[in-house]
């Protein structure tokens, strides 16, 4: 891997985003609007906002980065730019690292904005440190990015890539503990939710809102999210083939 090629790739990805201000606005504004809406919807029962709000802070960046990366990487594959890059002295690590750096930066901005709004004006009470909320959100974003990159290999068109969102993400969304606490699910569902990385994002956010210190359990949750991200990136790297049919 080369630092110059990785940062050049990150810069290029950010330049592409800069030319698409509508996407930037959607990435930053939509989560803020949704979380504000959630606050309103549960105005009469603040404890629901308290339990769901934190979990959503971990889920938004995951979904947004999954979508942006799967479509972006699909475009690289279909436009021929990926093939061009792979004939050049660019390692797969440079490419994946560049994407991670660029989307990690966007995720950081998004997390600061959304968690700032939620913990500040919307009044979500967080017992633990606020930086941990931002850190978990960024880890979730990188996990979403890595999974999006991997799944893009199985899509031929942008229509298909977008359909992977309900296929890959909604099951995790249903089972991650947002609707029913995971320990109250049927055993089989509980097992499935145990192997889905988004579950640990919700667990981590729950721990941060209810515990004052950074516990070993929280660190373990973060490690699982990061590990799943690395695993997805490694699987994604396998799908970047220099030689094709």
């Amino acid at each position, binding site marked *: 891997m080369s630092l110059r090629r990785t940062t050049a790739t990150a*810069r*290029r990805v950010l330049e*592409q985003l800069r030319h698409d201000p509508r996407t930037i606005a959607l990435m930053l504004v939509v989560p803020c609007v949704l979380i504000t809406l959630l606050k309103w919807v549960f105005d009469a029962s603040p404890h629901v906002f308290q339990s769901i709000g934190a979990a959503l802070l971990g889920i938004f960046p995951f979904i947004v980065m999954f979508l942006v990366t799967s479509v972006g990487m699909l475009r690289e594959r279909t*436009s021929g*730019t990926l093939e*061009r890059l792979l*004939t*050049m002295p660019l390692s797969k690590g440079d490419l994946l690292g560049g994407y991670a750096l660029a989307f990690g930066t966007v995720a950081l901005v998004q997390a600061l904005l959304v968690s700032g709004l939620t913990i500040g004006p919307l009044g979500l009470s967080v017992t633990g440190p606020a930086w941990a909320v931002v850190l978990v959100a960024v880890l979730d974003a990188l996990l979403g990015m890595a999974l999006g990159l991997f799944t893009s290999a199985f899509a031929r068109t942008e229509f298909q890539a977008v359909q992977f969102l309900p296929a890959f993400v909604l099951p995790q969304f249903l089972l991650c503990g947002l609707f029913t606490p995971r320990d109250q699910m049927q055993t089989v569902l509980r097992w499935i939710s145990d192997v889905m990385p988004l579950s640990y994002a919700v667990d981590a956010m729950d721990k941060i809102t209810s515990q004052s210190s950074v516990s070993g359990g929280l660190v373990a949750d973060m490690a699982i999210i990061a590990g799943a991200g690395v695993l997805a990136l490694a699987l994604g790297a396998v799908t970047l083939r*220099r*030689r094709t049919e």
Partner: protein
Amino acid sequence: MMNYAVEVHDLRVVRGGQVVLQDVTAQVQTGSVTGLLGPSGCGKTTLLRSVVGVQKVAGGEVRVLGTAAGSAVLRDRIGYVTQAPSVYGDLSVMENLRYFAAVLGAPRDDPERVIAAVGLGGKEGARADRLSGGQQARVSLAAALLGTPKVLVLDEPTVGLDPVLRAELWSLFHRLAAADDPVTFLISSHVMDEASRCTRLLLMREGRILASDTPEELLARTGAGDVEGAFLRLVGAAS
């Protein structure tokens, strides 16, 4: 002894159960501007992809500058321009070329040089997807000229271009090929007229090489008046 930048021996490529290249053996002389001519669908692109090292091959050997095609050491020495312009449509011409220059480790002012070389001066700030097809093809070509490539593999690079510009690009190819440190060109085309612009020809049909010659030798050998006629006589002789 002849010096070859590209050597292909008994290359066989099978795609989706179909034999696309059948025992292809061919050489490209160092510093030549070699035209790979043949009708569309005859396997030109597959042969070029094999030379660049992005094609899965079923058998045979492809060597570029003495090493196996696709080797890591070749990645900054071989430039490849596909038929579809492989550039980022949502970036400007300059942003595209700056990125590819950074990946190649080319000098910082290299984008300006290649933009001038392909006649895109004044278009630096334009988004690639707002350019015409011919202009986009030139951005793609400019990216392949970045750095110091030793071999340039160009797939139909002059399709749809203004004749004046086409003549300019061919003279650029010849200038680079004739330099002290020559660049070798392997250029495909389905337009037989382009043959006269090449120093060497490879004629191809249905996954096989029909002839490998200079344009003059080819005409003299077949007794045809032009390359199209030579092609027809070679096909007739083979069947």
